[in-house]
């Protein structure tokens, strides 16, 4: 459809006339500079992680990742992701719905507040919950009286992760739903569908790729968060250590191979994240460019 010209545009072959493109030599110098920078900066560290992980052989690697502390760190990380990602996904959908389908005063302020966790230091994101819930914190006494532990326990880690990853889904959906507008939903209503059916049958299929992408990014961050979690966790081995914290401890104890072994698991997940992201982008692009007979 019209309006997506830009997408086609990027895939047009670049004309190789002197008037509107660079000389061949300049072009190749620029490509080599860019690719070289990325290799040195992104590829090399990634490669290093996997090589260091298997530095001392696969036995050490397997021992490192099957160590009880490592297993409990993996388990805790998964639990945290399972708590935070669905909540932030629901929040993201609700926030995007409110912000994109309706007009109200204070809307841009609301969007700015949703963005706020991106702008603050993860350390501060952890600190605020310490100030609220630690023994000396605002609700510390009350929590103590009721024997509820938040800081240096799983709820604290979950809260800090929730705050840090809060904007991911909303941030993906808001621009997407803004460009989609409200006509599809209006069409559904005129055809007699109620609000919930309209959301399920019309809105959700329209936003599914954006939603999935947001969830992927949110998961990656939830699993990898270090600073915020580090503040609230208390680093209790086997209890409140997530995978990144476990890696830190191993590293600081000079168990480099073990540290990189656990790190390689997370890196593997990061690579999957990138692949899924690119598959989604490719899918979206494909659905925007009609191809005759694709059905």
């Amino acid at each position, binding site marked *: 459809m019209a309006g997506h010209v*830009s997408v086609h*545009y*990027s895939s047009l072959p*670049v004309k190789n006339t002197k*008037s*509107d*493109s*660079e000389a061949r030599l300049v072009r190749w110098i620029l*490509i080599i500079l*860019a*690719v070289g*920078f*990325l290799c*040195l*900066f*992104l590829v*090399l*560290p990634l490669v290093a992680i996997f090589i260091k992980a298997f530095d001392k052989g696969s036995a050490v690697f397997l021992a490192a990742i099957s160590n009880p502390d490592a297993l409990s760190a993996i388990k805790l990380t998964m639990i945290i992701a399972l708590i935070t990602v669905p909540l932030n996904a629901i929040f993201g959908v*609700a*926030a995007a719905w*409110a912000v994109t*389908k309706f*007009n*109200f*005063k*204070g809307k*841009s302020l609301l969007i*700015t*507040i949703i963005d706020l966790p991106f*702008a603050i*230091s993860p*350390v*501060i994101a952890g*600190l*605020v919950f*310490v*100030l609220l819930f630690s023994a*000396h914190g*605002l609700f510390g006494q009350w929590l103590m009286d009721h024997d509820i532990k938040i800081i240096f326990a799983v709820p604290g880690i979950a809260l800090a992760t929730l*705050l840090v990853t809060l904007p991911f889904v909303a941030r993906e959906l808001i621009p997407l739903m803004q460009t989609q507008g409200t006509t599809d939903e*209006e069409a559904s*209503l005129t055809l007699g569908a109620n609000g919930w059916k*309209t959301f399920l049958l019309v809105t959700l299929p329209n936003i599914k790729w954006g939603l999935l992408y947001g969830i992927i*990014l949110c998961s*990656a961050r939830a699993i*990898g*968060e*270090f*600073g915020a979690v*580090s*503040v609230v966790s208390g680093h209790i081995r086997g209890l409140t250590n997530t995978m990144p914290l476990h890696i*830190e401890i191993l*590293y600081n104890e000079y168990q480099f191979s073990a540290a990189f072994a656990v*790190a390689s698991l*997370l*890196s593997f997940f*990061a690579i999957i994240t*990138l692949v899924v*992201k*690119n598959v989604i982008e490719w899918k979206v692009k494909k659905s925007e460019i009609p191809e005759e007979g694709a059905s």
Partner: protein
Amino acid sequence: MAHLQGLKVKRNSVLPGFGISLGFTMFYISILVILPLSTIFIHSVTVPWSKVWETISDQRVVASYQLSIGASLLAAFINVVFGVLIAWVLVRYRFPGRRMIDGLVDLPFALPTAIAGIALTTLYSQNGWIGQFLNFKVAFTPLGITLALTFIGLPFVVRTVQPVLQNVDKEIEEASASLGANRLQTFVRVIFPELLPAALTGFALAFARALGEYGSVVFIAGNMPMRTEITPLLIMTKLEQYDYAGATAIAAVMLIFSFILLFVINLLQWWTNRKFI
């Protein structure tokens, strides 16, 4: 829903779910964002001002501001240079592996920061793969910090400049060429002004992210007071000493800085979008 009245809702849509979606959104961000962040300021005012000032103007703390701001600015600047270059190459040229490279740009977003930290430290320490060839120290110096901050900020500039570059109308370049400008003149006078708002937005985003960054920096920084101690680390140190008042005071300074940056970023984004409507 008590919040809603304050917002002066003007219903002008027939779509359902306004009350519940906005209500839930407000409730969620109140509990997770507004209430927690306001405790920083509440906490700061309960402490006497002189004490707060003493903390935030302490020599060691000031040194950490200088380091954090300096390294972040430098990293953001490197990101703008290479970010624009990478975006340019990815949008304008076709070469083998382009799609892979394009996909790889987001790695710093996907890779946990602590892992980036240990990987970079390992590479750039004195006997690391790269460090051994350099006759100057990288790891455990401000240079190492800048390196880590460059790593985590790289995607910001690329991803803000890329779509804008894709939308630059090829015709304006052809027009420029037809009027007798050479390629460099066209880039400097026609293309670059189009990219500027996006590049600045990317710069501000990378800078904001770098200022608060913790995970990737602590490993490579060495964390020597006055020399390689960044502000977030200082907050962490104060917390570990149970100096909540000190940690909070420094956090308040950082938060104010973040708010200002967020405001600037919003302005820049507004500028970028306005140009392309």
